[in-house]
């Protein structure tokens, strides 16, 4: 789960990291009231879960009441890389003497947290990483040992931090690590971590990703998952416990197991089709879960045909067939379905479907044939619509 900037900063502040004063606004009036209260100059910042908003005009400095109003209404009207801006973060502007970069990432290859520090932070950190990797100090921490002060010193001296700041850099890194562990984050990134004119370190931005699997241990963080910018189908699916990702195309996809569903998307694309979604019904799906999944897929109006691709292990094909029959009765779909059932109880599943005689349902024997058929059907329907 990716947090918005202000959510990330509030989370880091709980662990002693210094962040600027500020507040959230969802309307121009709220934004202006906050700005007046904080005083000028102040920053008006779009809250979206995507990088690079600064370069696209999503962060502006207001020097007066009138500017705060103008910036707030302009940014609230923006779409940043397709995401509408629903919230603003208004904060007191900071006096910036230098921009550092600090992060803790979950390094899969090393199977350990990796802490990074650079004195060359700011919008071009990726270019720095590519051109001068030695400008970024980095080390792995044994999770059973934890972050020690010497780790902090190795990073601070390695990154050539100005001497008077070494102590506070070590302290800030240690607090970021505390937050990473205590909140069970998989990413904590502060860019820029600024040095103020008063020689204080302040997190001016924050990118925090929390581990969804650990949320049960962090009830305080659970409401953060209620994203304002979440897609309608993705929200429906999440509330029903299904794994669903919205895509751009017009062919609805349901399968069991993440790998098989990804593979199904690929095979459909190779057959010339465009998948509308990724939906993993999971292992051992019962009939009502299948019917619910169909409901989520069909709620996307772009969908012109649906492909079911099931290889049953713990999932039983007869249960899948029952779910599909239930879904047809309940939802009366107006788009064709192609079904491929293999594995546990596949013969019974196919017999149930044949007996039900569902209109617009096609059974195919193999994954490849099913993909070709659904692509033909989706294309055919488009011609009819013209």
């Amino acid at each position, binding site marked *: 789960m990716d947090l918005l900037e202000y959510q990330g900063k509030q989370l880091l502040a709980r662990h002693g990291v210094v962040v600027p004063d500020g507040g959230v606004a969802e309307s121009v009036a709220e934004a202006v009231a906050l700005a007046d209260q904080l005083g000028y100059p102040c920053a008006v910042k779009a809250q979206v879960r995507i990088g690079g908003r600064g370069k696209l005009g999503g962060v502006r400095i207001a020097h007066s009441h009138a500017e705060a109003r103008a910036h707030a209404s302009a940014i609230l009207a923006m779409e940043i890389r397709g995401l509408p801006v629903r919230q603003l973060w208004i904060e007191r502007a900071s006096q910036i003497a230098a921009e550092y970069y600090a992060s803790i990432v*979950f390094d899969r290859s090393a199977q350990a947290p990796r802490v990074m520090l650079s004195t060359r932070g700011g919008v071009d950190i990726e270019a720095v990483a590519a051109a001068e990797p030695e400008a970024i100090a980095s080390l792995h921490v044994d999770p059973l040992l934890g972050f020690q002060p010497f780790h902090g010193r190795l990073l601070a001296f390695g990154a050539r931090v100005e001497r008077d700041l070494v102590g506070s850099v070590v302290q800030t890194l240690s607090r970021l690590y505390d937050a990473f562990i205590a909140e069970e984050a998989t990413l904590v990134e502060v860019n820029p971590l600024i040095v103020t004119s008063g020689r204080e370190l302040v997190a001016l931005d924050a990118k925090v990703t929390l581990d969804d699997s650990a949320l049960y241990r962090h009830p305080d963080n659970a409401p953060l998952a209620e994203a304002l910018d979440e897609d309608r189908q993705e929200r429906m699916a999440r509330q029903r416990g299904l794994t669903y990702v919205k895509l751009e195309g017009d062919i609805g996809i349901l399968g069991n197991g993440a790998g098989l569903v990804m593979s199904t998307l690929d095979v459909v694309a190779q057959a010339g089709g465009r998948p509308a979604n990724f939906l993993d019904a999971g292992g051992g799906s019962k009939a009502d879960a299948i019917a619910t999944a169909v409901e989520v897929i069909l709620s996307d109006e772009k969908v012109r045909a649906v492909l079911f691709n099931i290889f049953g*292990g713990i999932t039983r094909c007869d249960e899948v067939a029952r779910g599909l029959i239930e879904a047809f009765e309940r939802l009366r779909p107006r788009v064709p379905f192609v079904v491929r059932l293999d594995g546990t109880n596949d013969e019974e599943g196919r017999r149930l479907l044949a007996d039900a005689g569902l209109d617009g349902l096609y059974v195919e024997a193999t994954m490849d044939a099913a993909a070709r058929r659904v692509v033909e059907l989706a294309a055919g329907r488009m011609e009819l619509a013209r």
Partner: protein
Amino acid sequence: MSILIDERTRVCVAGITGREGRFHALNNRRYGTNVVAGVTPGKGGQDVEGVPVFDTFAEAVAQTGADAALLFVPARFAADSILEAAEAGVALIVAISEGIPAHDELRVMAQLRRRPGVRLIGPNCPGVLSPGKANVGIIPAAFFRPGSVGVVSRSGTLTYQIGGELARRGLGNSTIVGIGGDPIPGSSFVDILALFEEDPQTELIVMAGEIGGDAEERAAQFIAEHVSKPVVAYIAGFTAPPGKTMGHAGAIVSGGSGGAEAKARALEEGGARVGRTPTEVAELAAGMLAAGVGGGAR
């Protein structure tokens, strides 16, 4: 021969008194797997259709000589159970549990690095099957026959799909290993490729990867340097958009790395053949075996 498990493997099932654990423990015993014990804290002294249940792994190992653990423990208790099994001296731990918190996995792997004699398969995996010998997991054994193709995969149902395509062409398997879809798997492609390379029954290796991380790229390098047997690879996720997690916690294309195209290219450069669909993978494998490629010839 086979890798990791055979008919002599002595399996202890954690969570054997739960619905899933009981079902698969008994199912696997019917298949011929040597299921010697179960562990459920607080239920020691009971039995599940003749399989004795113990309170702790230490007791189960002492009483039955169990050398493999199969875990059906709920995610929030799974890390603890893995650590307990390792501490009790079990050599092979297969963790089926899905949704173990990432930081738990970090701590488990840090501890297992201190115990080089212990191998973890999973978590979030379908387990290991050596057809005709033993099933330590939930792979539906009825679809697979003994044979010469070793299979290693990050995904359960994709393994069945590829295994099913191989079976349709008359090919059986030495061992099928699901290493799981989590960001930090206990065993990697490289670990399992090394075992298949040494296994006399295995003549050809099929590996099924997916987007996210760099495990496939590492496998490609290992194949180039250390694997003499032919490898046919498959990568799922060519159409996955960057930044979206595709079901498996580990399946995400981020920051321009972990994409399917780059993985397929790396594997081809490493000397593997890459099939673009599960069907093509099976066709390539069948063709290579029929042509005698890798039929013992090095």
